[in-house]
């Protein structure tokens, strides 16, 4: 049994894995709707058989000291505890260690992640639901009283639920019914685990909620309740909110190179080959990132490339072959480091905007991909021109518009550039610096339309342009601006252009182009538009 449970466990038990695991667990519980009282209790517990300490330590290479420390602090059966604060970087195994420790101990606990419970009332409800031993659709007569929005109601209900739990456990252990007590888990303690506490800081009215969570021990005054907080941010971020029972900190450091090697080596089909591969790639990647999730994603395509050279998968690589493989993979490493890291971390985008706009996030990702894959998105020709004019409007100072877009089509620009003295170069440097700092500028709709008119007109006059295009521009120019406005809004939707807050003085919306030069140049190349000619460079 123990053996099978090992193989069942995912290779890396990161947070996402443990979350899916807990989600699966809930699913299981919901499916097996049984009216019997004790069976509902297993809601708290892992259905699987509890694991031994050795297996537990084996699951988490490099986490030995942390596992032992948590076990020590949770302590023997029926011993009260001071709240724990588990912290460390992402994908260092905090959540999975804690949940697996409880699996090892076989004690009842409630796991609530502030990531999936994204508002106070949902968090409260989730915890209460878990505690009241039944899901909402099991018994409806309770659900009305649970819709608790306020923390004060939550505390009252939580206290009720906990006392109920404690009394039930007490009864069961009095009866010393062996079968029941195994269903309940061991001991009279109940543990509440709050994961991703750092997310709360971005909620509305967060400081109160954090204080309340950290003061639960004082507010409940129940020795039977053990509290564990899991957070990515260190305790220094919460000092202002923590009450008198400051929780005990447990630090999960990032994995070292050896730990990563050991973790990545697990469950490999061809360990010899993979180990020789890791010896080549792990070091340079380790200098850039230490996060297991990123590394494992980065290594997958690289290993495919590495393996291509080996004809027989069963073959054991010898010294000369290693050499050959190394030579093959070496040139790929540096570019792939840069390439893999491109996908913008979504987490951060959320944090910045503080909003959960799915549309926006997917757009961001999409535009990130576009950067190195060439133009893999489709745009109508006029949209491309509009896009470019937006880019120009963002990059060029508005005062230079007339100089750039006069009838000669920006040729005067070249003349001006030629006479650069020492002083003007310094000024240029200064301007460049300022531009780096300021980022793309914002522009009004009128300016965008004016530039759009100009560049489509210039494109019109170009002798080498095909007549087909010309035909289009004729239509375009004669057409109403409503079309352009529609395209503008779709560009906004795709997050190429962002709408900034309307200027209070002028009273209309301003726009800002958020793409970088590389993409703009690619778009320009695809319609053979001389973008760099119009770009002001300090």
């Amino acid at each position, binding site marked *: 049994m123990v053996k099978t449970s090992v193989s069942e466990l995912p290779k890396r038990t990161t947070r996402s894995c443990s979350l899916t695991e807990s989600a699966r667990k809930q699913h299981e519980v919901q499916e097996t709707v049984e009216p019997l009282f004790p069976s509902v209790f297993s809601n708290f517990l892992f259905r699987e058989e509890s694991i031994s300490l050795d297996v537990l330590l084996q699951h988490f290479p490099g986490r030995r000291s942390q596992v032992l420390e948590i076990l*020590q602090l949770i302590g*023997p*059966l029926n*011993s*009260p*505890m*001071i709240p724990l604060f588990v*912290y460390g*970087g992402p994908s260092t195994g905090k959540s999975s260690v804690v949940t697996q420790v409880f699996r090892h101990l076989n004690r009842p606990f409630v796991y609530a992640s502030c990531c999936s419970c994204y508002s106070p009332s949902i968090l409260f409800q989730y915890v209460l639901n878990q505690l009241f031993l039944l899901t909402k659709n099991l018994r409806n007569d309770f659900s009305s009283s649970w819709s608790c929005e306020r*923390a*004060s109601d939550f505390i009252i209900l939580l206290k009720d639920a906990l006392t109920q739990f404690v009394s039930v456990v007490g009864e069961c252990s009095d009866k010393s019914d062996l079968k029941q007590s195994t269903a309940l888990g061991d001991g009279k303690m109940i543990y509440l685990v709050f994961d991703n506490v750092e997310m709360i800081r971005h909620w509305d009215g967060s400081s*109160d909620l954090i204080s*309340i969570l950290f003061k639960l021990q*004082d*507010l409940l005054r129940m*020795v039977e309740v053990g509290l564990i907080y899991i957070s*990515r*941010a*260190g*305790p*220094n*971020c919460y000092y202002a909110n923590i*009450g*008198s*029972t*400051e929780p*005990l900190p447990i*630090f999960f*450091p*990032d994995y070292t190179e050896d730990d990563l090697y050991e973790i990545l080596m697990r469950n490999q089909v061809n360990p010899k080959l993979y180990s020789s591969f890791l010896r080549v790639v792990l070091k*340079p990647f*380790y*200098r*850039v*990132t230490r*996060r297991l999730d*990123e590394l494992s994603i980065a290594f997958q395509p690289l290993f495919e490339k590495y393996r291509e050279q080996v004809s027989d998968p069963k073959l054991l690589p010898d010294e000369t072959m290693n050499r050959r493989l190394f030579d093959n993979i070496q040139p790929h490493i540096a570019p792939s*480091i*840069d*390439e893999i*890291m491109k996908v*913008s*971390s979504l*987490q*951060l985008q959320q944090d*910045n905007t*503080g909003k959960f706009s799915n549309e926006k996030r997917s757009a961001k990702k999409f535009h990130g991909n576009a950067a190195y894959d060439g133009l893999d998105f489709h745009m109508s020709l006029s949209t491309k021109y509009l896009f470019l004019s937006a880019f120009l409007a963002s990059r060029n100072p508005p005062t230079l518009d007339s100089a750039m877009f006069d009838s000669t089509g920006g040729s005067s620009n070249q003349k001006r550039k030629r006479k650069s003295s020492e002083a003007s170069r310094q000024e240029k440097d200064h301007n460049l*610096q300022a531009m*780096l*700092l*300021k*980022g*793309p500028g*914002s522009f009004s709709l009128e300016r965008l339309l004016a530039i759009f008119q100009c560049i489509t007109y210039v494109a019109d006059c170009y002798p080498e342009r095909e007549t087909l295009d010309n035909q289009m521009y004729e239509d375009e120019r004669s057409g109403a601006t409503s079309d352009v406005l529609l395209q503008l809004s779709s560009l906004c939707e795709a997050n190429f252009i*962002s*709408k*900034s*807050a309307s200027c209070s003085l002028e009273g209309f919306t301003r726009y*800002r182009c*958020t793409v970088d030069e590389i993409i703009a140049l690619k778009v320009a190349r695809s319609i053979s538009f001389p973008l760099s000619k119009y770009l002001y460079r300090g």
Partner: protein
Amino acid sequence: MVEKKAAAAAEASVLLRRRLCDSAFIFAPLRSSPDGNYSKLKFLISNSITEACNNSVLILGPRGSGKNAVLELVLEDLRGEYQDMISVVRLNGLLHGDDNYGMKEIARQLCLEHGLLFSKIASSDDNSRFLIDMLRECGLAHKTVIFVLDEFDLFTQGKQRLLYGLLDAMQSLVSQSVVIGVSCRLDADQLLEKRVRSRFSHRKLLFVPPSVEDLQRLVERILYLPADFSSPCDFVTEFNSKLGKIFVDKKFKDVLGSVSNVDGSISNLLRFLFRVVSSLDLESGLLSLDNFKTASLSIHRHPKMENIRNASILELYLLVCMHRLEVKEQNSYNFNSIMKEYKAIHDAYKSSDCRGGNACLRAFEHLLERELISFTDTRRGGLSIEYRPVKLLVSPHELHQGLKSYPSCPVILQKLLNHETYK
């Protein structure tokens, strides 16, 4: 024999942990001191019970100094002495800081206590009228209502209608109640509005952190096993004699001194002892000086340093670049200027690992996540990460220390940092 000993040790550790989590046990000796806060508070409240008068008092002191624990002791003892003559209403500023909800909570608790039906939909006016009526009724029945307002300072944030309502109701002759405010803000009474302050009796009880000698006495009281401990007698004597040896050791006094120097509150000491007890070796079953030493090291952490030590080499490069920019007195910089600096370093020193913009941006995001750096602006719409101005959240000294303790830190980084800072 060994098993028996291990069982005894486990039992002992459970007992010690239970003691550490039981504030009544820890603060019990305060009962005996005649001029302590316990006696003062008890005298004050029992006086107003027996004399049938109104009173109000503030209990002030830093966090973790046992304000609430002492109050609980007093209330428990009073309940023993005057069984049916008191009823306690507890409010917490965190939960009931809002005036309306505070009133509601008072009404709810009073209803619960006196077996009345509580209506959820009663308005704030109804509730405050109910409060006045209840106070009159209780006064006529010679029953004292004790209001405990925890986190008292938070009640003063709004219009203070709750405080005014409570204290104003106490002005009448028939009522008989005590308002006890507990706060960690020493200036809590200054926060009161004039109309509230004038109705408040300016009694204050101040809790001060205990001296090192007191702490040592407390440690001894907590850790010594009782003689009637239900295990082989020799285990208790062995355990206690080992402890006695540790307590007189000068090294132990140093450890205790270092713990109380950082934070001299009792709760900090309890956390420290909890670490000690939880690291109790079940095989020998005895505490050693090493337990105390490791606990004192693990309880005080330096999250910033840990974060620096966690950072990858590329992230360190970015940190050093930011530091260089700050030394150059650039008052505002963003990712692009950092990248420029980064490229400049690589051009100047020809170091081997120069990464592209994407990897650097990712490392930059990691730094943001680690909270070693942060944006200076909050939510400027539309600007992408590269352009938003950032700042360092670590001091040059911390960065220096972090690099020093970093395993296999590139020499060039240290050189760059030293060159700039300690020229």
